[in-house]
């Protein structure tokens, strides 16, 4: 299936994510893989009560669109959808939802994981954590950078 036959949809929103509704919005396909990232209530040592997610209006959407289109070009997909939340997000709430549909599960798993790894290192979002000790910007992680590097084409 060419990238043109793949439904690519991205979104950035302040409203809480509704994973059930998002799952229903996916087309029926042989294999459907979804990813939900939730705010963890701890990070490194500190207890996290909430996050503030900053983004770059315009560039963030372009970046998500480019990542989803790259996935659609690299794997045989029917759909690739990404919705990212911004603004204040409480611990336990979802930050990001990714849904990928394909005829074969290998394509769906690879594309979904690729999208998350690319998003973590390329999409302009910045997390600030709020805990009992005040607020701190989250540092980028070496493990995210090395995970993303696995997908580099020769």
């Amino acid at each position, binding site marked *: 299936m060419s990238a043109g036959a793949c439904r690519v949809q991205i979104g950035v929103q302040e409203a809480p994510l509704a994973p059930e509704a998002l799952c229903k919005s996916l087309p029926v396909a042989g294999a459907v893989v979804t990813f939900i*990232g939730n705010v963890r209530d701890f990070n490194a040592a500190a207890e996290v009560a909430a996050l503030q*997610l*900053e*983004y*770059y209006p*315009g*560039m963030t959407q*372009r970046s998500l669109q480019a990542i989803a289109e790259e996935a659609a070009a690299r794997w045989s997909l029917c759909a690739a959808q990404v919705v*990212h939340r911004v603004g204040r997000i409480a611990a336990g709430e979802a*930050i*990001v939802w990714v849904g990928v549909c394909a005829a074969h599960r290998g394509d769906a798993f690879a594309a979904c994981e690729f999208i*998350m790894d690319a*998003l*973590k*290192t*390329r*999409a*302009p*979002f*910045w*997390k*600030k954590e709020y805990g009992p000790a005040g607020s701190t*910007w*989250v*540092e*980028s*992680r070496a493990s995210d950078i090395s995970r993303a590097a696995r997908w580099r084409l020769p």
Partner: protein
Amino acid sequence: MLRVLFFARLREQLGCEALDLKWAPEVNCVAALRAVLAQRGEPWQQALADDNLVAAVNQVVADAATPISSGDEVAFFPPVTGG
């Protein structure tokens, strides 16, 4: 004119989220713009000296040599930490 944007920790360090600068022929690339901004003294000089900062020109990630023209939107920001 140039529209210059700052995000996240850098925005807080500078106390500035956007700046409209008059474009000049010598501000012809990302490195040149960065040098001009650093000349504003502290906290600009120190904050912009961070090697990890990322630049984008017209919402596409750029490097030091990426050309800049009048009317461009240029952004500087720390490494991303979304998802």
